């Protein structure tokens, strides 16, 4: 196995990991904050991807411009659209279902799974069971040839850049804005934050919507890598959960490290064996790691 092959594969892993990161971030925070496991999260990814598709098919032509701009400049807009639509969906879900299930995490898991199933079926009824494709912008075609044997596709570079921007945005939001600070306060010590006047329920709703929106962005990014179908989310959700387990609950650095690790390890193990055996090895490594640190890579220190 040549070294360049490993580098190439590690790069693919990095781009996989960055998508996992977007998907897992919402999961990790809603679990840390509300003790809620959202099984419909994968379907948020799917919804985000379909929003991108619809945007390109219906809305972009309505806004005018040439065919090239439909898949070009408007692609950036459609990422924003995917974020807002899924965030709205998340807000709705939080208000209708999750808010009523506080303190019952296993029940939340079941209810959200039911919602995911319904979303998936609705997508199949609306868009059909067969996959659809989103045309990638022209300026994302091709690859950056680092050496003769290493080619980094622009699409994947774009995804990594997109994710980095998202992370910086979230970091600034959590650490610099007053709303983000309230969120961190609720994350560290819910009761104390509530006593000091933080509307924890509203914080929960915002957090959940934000997580859903990020999943939508992940879906929009996935449209660059292949066709999309109703079961798009299920392919990523198990890995996203493993990211949460490995990274530790409600920690931004932990989630980042875990997502990158799982993405890269998956891709590199895949190289020597098969895709399945790669997944098995990653799973075994995670279980082994939990023996050492059951709470994950980074744990929140709190006196609560």
């Amino acid at each position: 196995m040549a070294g360049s092959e490993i580098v190439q594969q590690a790069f693919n892993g990095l781009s996989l990991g960055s998508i996992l990161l977007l998907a897992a971030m919402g999961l990790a925070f809603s679990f840390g904050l509300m003790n809620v496991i959202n099984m419909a999260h994968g379907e948020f990814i799917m919804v985000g991807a379909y929003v991108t598709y619809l945007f390109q098919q219906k809305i972009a032509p309505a806004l005018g411009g040439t065919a090239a701009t439909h898949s070009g400049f408007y692609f950036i807009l459609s990422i924003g659209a995917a974020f807002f639509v899924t965030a709205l969906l998340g807000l709705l879900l939080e208000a209708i279902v999750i808010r009523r299930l506080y303190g019952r995490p296993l029940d939340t898991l079941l209810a959200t799974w039911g919602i995911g199933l319904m979303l998936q079926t609705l997508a199949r009824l609306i868009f059909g069971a067969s996959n659809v494709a989103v045309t990638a912008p022209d300026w994302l075609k091709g690859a950056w040839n680092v050496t003769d044997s290493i080619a980094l596709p622009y699409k994947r570079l774009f995804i990594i850049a997109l994710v980095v921007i998202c992370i910086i945005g979230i970091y600034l939001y959590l650490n610099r804005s007053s709303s983000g600070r309230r969120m961190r306060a609720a994350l560290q010590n819910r009761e104390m934050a509530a006593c000091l006047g933080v509307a924890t329920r509203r914080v929960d709703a915002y957090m959940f919507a934000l997580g859903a929106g990020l999943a939508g962005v992940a879906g929009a990014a996935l449209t660059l890598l292949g066709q999309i179908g109703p079961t798009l989310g299920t392919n990523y959700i198990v890995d996203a959960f493993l990211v949460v387990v490995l990274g530790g609950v409600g920690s931004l650095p932990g989630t980042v490290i875990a997502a990158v690790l799982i993405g890269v390890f998956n891709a590199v193990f895949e190289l020597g064996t098969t895709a399945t055996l790669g997944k098995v090895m990653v799973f075994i490594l995670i279980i082994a790691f939990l023996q050492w640190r059951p709470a994950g890579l980074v744990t929140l220190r709190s006196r609560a």
Partner: protein
Amino acid sequence: MIDPKVRRYAGWGAFAVAAILLLFVAPSSLSGFNLNLLGRFLSYAIVALGLDLIWGYAGMLSLGQGLFFGLGAYCFAMYVQLEQAGNKLPDFMGLYGLSALPAIWEPFHSPIFALGMAILLPMALATVLGYIVFRSRVKGVYFSIITQALTFIVSLLLIGQQQLINGTNGLPINDSSTLFGHSLQQTGTKQAIYLVTVICLGLAFLLCRYVSGSRFGRLLIALRDDENRLRFAGYNPVKIKIIVFALAAGLAGLGGVLFFPQGGIVSPASMGIVPSIEIVIWVAVGGRGTLIGAVIGALVVNEGKSWISTKSPDAWQLVMGALFVGVVLLFPAGIVGSIQIYGARLWARINKNAPPLGVVAAVHEAESEMSGAVEASK
């Protein structure tokens, strides 16, 4: 309040009536097709009993029961394939150009080995996973996620093994399949398998009743309600958890064995994430924490599924999704639990003249069972 003694007699009476109905009335009155369907659902009910023990009583939501179910079915299916093939190779291996039987298949010539493995293999897997997971005090949703990931990975592994166990296609029975020399297409064989299923379900029910009523059963409930207190009281929760996890896995394996000849096929699709979580909805609908609820849930949900799916498979998916949301939001105690609660309230309203203490006790008992169900969801 109904006298506990009367209640116990009523319980045994209901058990006897159900046994008579299933053993004698159903085989003679149902068509072959419907009897086969009922047999399948009854084998599901055994799986549901196992999940009820670990989730309804001990409060650990395993999303890996489908995996154990599938393993049991696969072990038995390997024996059936070999019996049909005789001294030759099973049909599908010829298609992939295999010339010799893989070593792992060899012992499955023996039905006793195959049946033993069908139950022991899931139990062993549950014990190993349980030991590793419980020892590091991984619990709650973490446990659910890890069991789900394991299920996902094993079904992926099986899909990849085409030459060994026929990959996605799974192991089917066909017209010339036999079991202990009897054709699986004959009515007599089918009825016999159905009867064995009923008896196994009865035994599994009695076993679970015994376990849940014993001291061990009380430990399970204590585990669900306050694990730390149990630990401080000097018990080892790891041991209790492993035992109940293994027991649930064994029951799922047994359900798989009984399902295979009646379902006609086992494939990776019957043991993945979705089948595993379907088992959860049976128990949730029937009423977690009540054994009879698990059985009723498995029957009702599957009856509904087969009825609706014949009209439209998409509709079933929507109904199942709505069922999850509805049960969890509106009836967390399930069918049986809700009947207990509302029944006790009704009883209290009718019996205004009855000694008030008893009424209060009845409502309290029912409500504590309800809160038990809610507790199980934590």
